[in-house]
């Protein structure tokens, strides 16, 4: 059995950064609280020993609320971990220690990583690590995960803690609470804790704290105990004049304040730093939006200019090669269709048309994510989200959706209510993911200019807004207010940005590209044998309705596999890479809008049915198809008016 080390900490404390350092790049690192929603496991060989590392979703406390947090809690309570590696953001030490105290009560070997020491320094917080270690009875290792500082020592310490079996000190509450715990301990049977695999004292405290999950568990096995527990809760509540969970959480808080004051010295700097000034602008009710617009415009311009230049350059060669192939092999031979139209265009279409936009888009998104600007956008957008009747937190799936719909759907786990999860998932898959962004850039921005592309994005948001409004009317529910921590601005590290972009790009290369190539081959065969005509004929009602050329039909079918496929196929179906010569502006726009909204791609449908059930996934397919039709028609009429 290899040693199992579980990383746990409050959201955005740097767990994933540490985990990745140990395990190679596996977990998502973002400067956005709550991006880890599932646990990630990795095998690491360290000093000749095999170790299992587990990255758990961030939690503020062991009183879990949303499904992502519940996952961490269940993992820890199941006693799976040999060592609990508690990662703390040293710059918010006072608050973070509350979770530490809770973890200590699990009575497992434990190690504390005091991460973000650089940030603590900057904020003028000096921490006496040896003293903290002595007070808690667990080893404490200061680290700067982003720079890789202290991490080897951390792993070493954690492994050692596992072998030696470090025991944290027992957290003692004030006398009257301890008395209640002792009395409850006399009344209940310690076997109950053994049955649940929990430390006895931990269970007692949690029961007094009115923990719904454990109370239900104990109530199911030993219904007779519930009145006894309730009685002690009542005594506690009456003597303090507050509910028992507040009594105990305040107690824990008081303990952490004492620890904090004993080990930390704070000398805040007086004059506002550039970060504070920047924040004032970024969250200002007027300048905030101005900045947002500037950032977005810059983002679009850069992605588009870079993409366009590269595409022009590469597509020229692609065209020449295709013509050359036609001359060599003869235009109507099967070899030409298979090798040139199918294989060659499939392989290099991906490189020449998708890569130029995908790469800068992914790098740009990673930069934005890591800088910490996105939570500020969530703050600015809170009003808008509430107008839609959605939780402020639901901005996270929407933002992730610009990268890829699959993580967006998975991230809806951070939402507490099933209704919110349903509505947000259905809406978030309508956000143009990087694949659809490539289509927008390569078609609309290329032919009509970048501002039209921006227009498509805004139109997309408008549609989502209207749908959000409608769903609030159909499924009314008071959405809880936004309450979110806004992390520090951080200088994105190139290391992380490149890794993250590479990670997404790799997904394109290993998953999408083979599909593109296979799809391209299939289409070339269909074309050679003249079957594409049948498919196109079958789709004639659709294409005719949208005013698109007949050949476009097949590309729409392929697009369900991967959205980029529609784009590559479009070149092939129309027999040219110079699409704007064949399609009018109105047709281009209609095609883009239709592809943007219609049926989510296969992976997204799979993610939807995993998270919500296949019925809801089916619903998403039907709704989006209907929506795409309506919007496609609208765009067609709009195009007829404008162009």
């Amino acid at each position, binding site marked *: 059995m290899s040693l199992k080390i579980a990383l746990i900490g409050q959201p955005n404390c740097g767990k994933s950064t540490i985990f990745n350092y140990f395990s190679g790049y596996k977990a998502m690192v973002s400067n956005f609280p709550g991006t880890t929603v599932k646990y990630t496991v990795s095998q690491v060989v360290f000093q000749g020993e095999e170790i299992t590392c587990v990255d758990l979703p961030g939690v*503020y*406390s062991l*009183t*879990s*609320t*949303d499904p992502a947090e519940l996952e961490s809690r269940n993992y820890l309570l199941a006693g799976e971990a040999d060592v609990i590696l508690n990662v703390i953001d040293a*710059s*918010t030490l*006072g*608050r973070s220690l*509350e979770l530490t105290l809770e973890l200590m009560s699990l009575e497992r070997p434990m190690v504390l990583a005091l991460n973000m020491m650089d940030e603590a320094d900057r*904020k003028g*917080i000096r921490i006496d690590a040896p003293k903290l270690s002595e007070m808690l009875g667990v080893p404490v290792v200061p680290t700067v995960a982003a720079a890789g500082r202290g991490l080897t020592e951390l792993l070493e310490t954690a492994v050692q803690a596992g072998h030696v079996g470090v025991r944290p000190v027992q957290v003692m509450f004030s006398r009257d609470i301890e008395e209640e715990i002792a009395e409850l301990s006399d009344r209940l049977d310690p076997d109950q804790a053994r049955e649940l695999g929990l430390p006895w004292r931990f269970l007692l405290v949690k029961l007094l704290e*009115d923990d*719904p999950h454990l109370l239900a568990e104990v109530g199911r096995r030993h219904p007779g105990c519930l009145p006894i527990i309730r009685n002690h809760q009542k005594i506690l509540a009456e003597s303090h004049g507050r*509910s028992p*969970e*507040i009594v105990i*959480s*305040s107690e824990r*808080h008081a303990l952490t304040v004492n620890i904090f004051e004993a080990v930390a010295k704070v000398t805040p700097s007086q004059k506002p730093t550039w970060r*504070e000034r920047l*924040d*004032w602008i970024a*969250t*200002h*009710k007027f300048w*905030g939006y101005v900045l947002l617009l500037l950032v977005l415009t810059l983002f679009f311009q850069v992605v588009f200019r870079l993409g366009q230049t590269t595409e022009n350059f590469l597509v020229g060669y692609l065209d020449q090669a295709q013509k050359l192939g036609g001359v060599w092999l003869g235009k109507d031979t099967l070899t030409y269709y298979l090798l040139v139209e199918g294989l060659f265009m499939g392989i290099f279409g991906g490189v020449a048309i998708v890569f130029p936009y995908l790469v800068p888009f992914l790098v740009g998104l990673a930069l934005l994510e890591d800088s910490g600007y996105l*939570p500020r956008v*969530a*703050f*600015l957008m*809170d*009003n808008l989200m*509430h107008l839609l009747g959605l939780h*402020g937190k639901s901005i996270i799936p929407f933002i992730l959706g610009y990268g890829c719909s699959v993580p967006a759907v998975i991230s809806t786990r951070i939402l*507490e*209510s099933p209704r919110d999860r349903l509505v947000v998932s259905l809406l978030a898959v309508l956000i143009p993911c990087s694949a659809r962004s490539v289509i927008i850039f390569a078609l609309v921005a290329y032919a009509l200019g970048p501002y039209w592309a921006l227009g498509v994005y805004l139109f997309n948001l408008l549609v989502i807004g209207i749908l959000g409004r409608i769903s609030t009317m159909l499924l009314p529910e*008071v959405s*809880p*207010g*936004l*309450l*979110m*921590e*806004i992390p520090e601005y951080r200088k994105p590290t190139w290391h992380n940005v490149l890794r993250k972009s590479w990670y997404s790009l790799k997904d394109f290369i290993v998953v999408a590209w083979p599909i593109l190539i296979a799809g391209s081959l299939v289409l070339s065969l269909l074309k050679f044998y003249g079957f594409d005509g049948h498919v196109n004929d079958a789709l004639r009602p659709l294409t005719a309705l949208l005013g698109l050329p007949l050949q476009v039909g097949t590309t729409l079918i392929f697009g369900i596999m991967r959205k980029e496929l529609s784009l590559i196929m479009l070149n092939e179906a129309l027999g040219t890479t110079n699409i704007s010569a064949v399609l009018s502006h109105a047709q281009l726009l209609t095609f883009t809008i239709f592809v943007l909204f219609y049926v989510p791609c296969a992976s997204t449908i799979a993610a939807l049915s995993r998270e919500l059930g296949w019925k809801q996934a089916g619903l998403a397919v039907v709704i989006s198809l209907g929506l795409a039709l309506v919007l496609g028609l609208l765009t067609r009429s709009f195009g007829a008016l404008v162009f």
Partner: protein
Amino acid sequence: MLPLGLLAPGERAEVVELMLEKPSCQHCRCPGASPHSLCRLGDLGLRVGKTVEVLNASGAGALLVKVDEARIAMNRGVAMKIKVRRKA
């Protein structure tokens, strides 16, 4: 005493009371008026006795407040449930 939601940007105040209404949240049964919001406040470090500073307020929308070293974005509805006393 006044609700945090009524402070202007730049003002500092001490938290006097989190207006906890009857238990309503089914998951953790935090005594919040809107599910979870108020039990989260404690998690984020906002408690009675703490000093808060309003950094920015976007009109009728969300507020950005600073507590200790953390910055918290909160919706005005939540901010109206937090009673504070102004500090000079």
